[in-house]
């Protein structure tokens, strides 16, 4: 590795040698949504799709792949979990379980 301004000794930490991480989503078959299946390392988007094909579709798991760079995912902060999610806990009326479903409706 060539020395540069950040690494005058020419050594870089392991994390800088690694390919970026991608999150992989697979659509099991037409009409279903893409589901998160795992993550992998790849040098770029094209390689991410190829690796995902080799890692996650070898047993016919899917017909379509999405790959998203993990750093591009915006996530909620676990520290905010209380204020974000606990207020929903005592609001069971938000579940649609209180409706009488007419007998004529067969496909709901």
């Amino acid at each position: 590795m060539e020395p540069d301004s950040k690494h005058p000794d020419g050594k870089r930490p392991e994390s800088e040698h690694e390919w970026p991480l991608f999150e992989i989503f697979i659509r099991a078959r037409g009409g279903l949504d893409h589901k998160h299946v795992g993550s992998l390392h790849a040098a770029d988007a094209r390689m991410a799709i190829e690796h995902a094909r080799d890692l996650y579709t070898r047993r016919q798991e899917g017909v379509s792949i999405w790959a998203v760079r993990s750093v591009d995912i915006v996530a909620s902060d676990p520290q905010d979990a209380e204020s974000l999610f606990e207020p929903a806990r005592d609001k069971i009326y938000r579940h649609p379980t209180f409706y009488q479903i007419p007998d004529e409706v067969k496909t709901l």
Partner: protein
Amino acid sequence: MSAAAPDRGARAAGPREAPPPLVVPPLFRYLLRLGDLALVLGQRLGEWVGHAPVLEEDLGLANIALDLIGQARLLLAYAGEVEGRGRGEDDLAFSRQHAEYLNPTLAEQPNGDFGETIVRQVMLDAFQLELYERLASSRDEHLAAIAAKAVKETRYHLRYSSSWLVRLGDGTAESHARVQAALERLWPYTVELGVEDELDRDMAERGIAPRLADVRTAWSKRIDEILAEATLERPRDRPYTWFGKRGEHSEHLGYMLAEMQYLQRAYPGAQW
């Protein structure tokens, strides 16, 4: 084989094993060429398992190896049928001597570094692709069906290997130098892929196989495109070539088969 054999004298003159004594159907020998290419290349790729640069590539190479072994099984099983002496795919894979193997010499070359494996893979993926695409309309329906299945797999193999060759060739100074050197080293073995002999001609005349000259032209064009994108220089063809496809192999095949066939030779007929 009475066909033109350029510079046989240039090869090391060693003892040669006698050809098989019985009359052998030409189609049997042709199927061995196809099946042995897939088997030997698959076995070589399998040697990467547990050793690839990263886990993702480990799985990628193993997938390709398994595709190739699958093709070999179909081709060798059919070869056994055509031969009509009761030999199945396992007999042909594990009980033949190296001089009875008819894969092109390039397939058995050692893996080298990852770049060298990729160079070998691109050359052979492109060859198999051109071949299988044409074999899919073979007059031999069984062979056509095997080829039609293999075409899809091989298209992905070439996509994988060529995208790696472009990355390495058009990558850093070191990766470029390494794959260019691997290309120089392996190029002489590619000549064999396009040299037609009596068996190739016979198969083409009967509509079973394409004319090898056509495969060679298409292969060459495809390779030129990939090398250009990879900023690699195409080496010059050398005047003589190897003929693994006639059973005249480099020293590497024997070692590979010794490992591959060990179990069946130590415990003949073993199953698990």
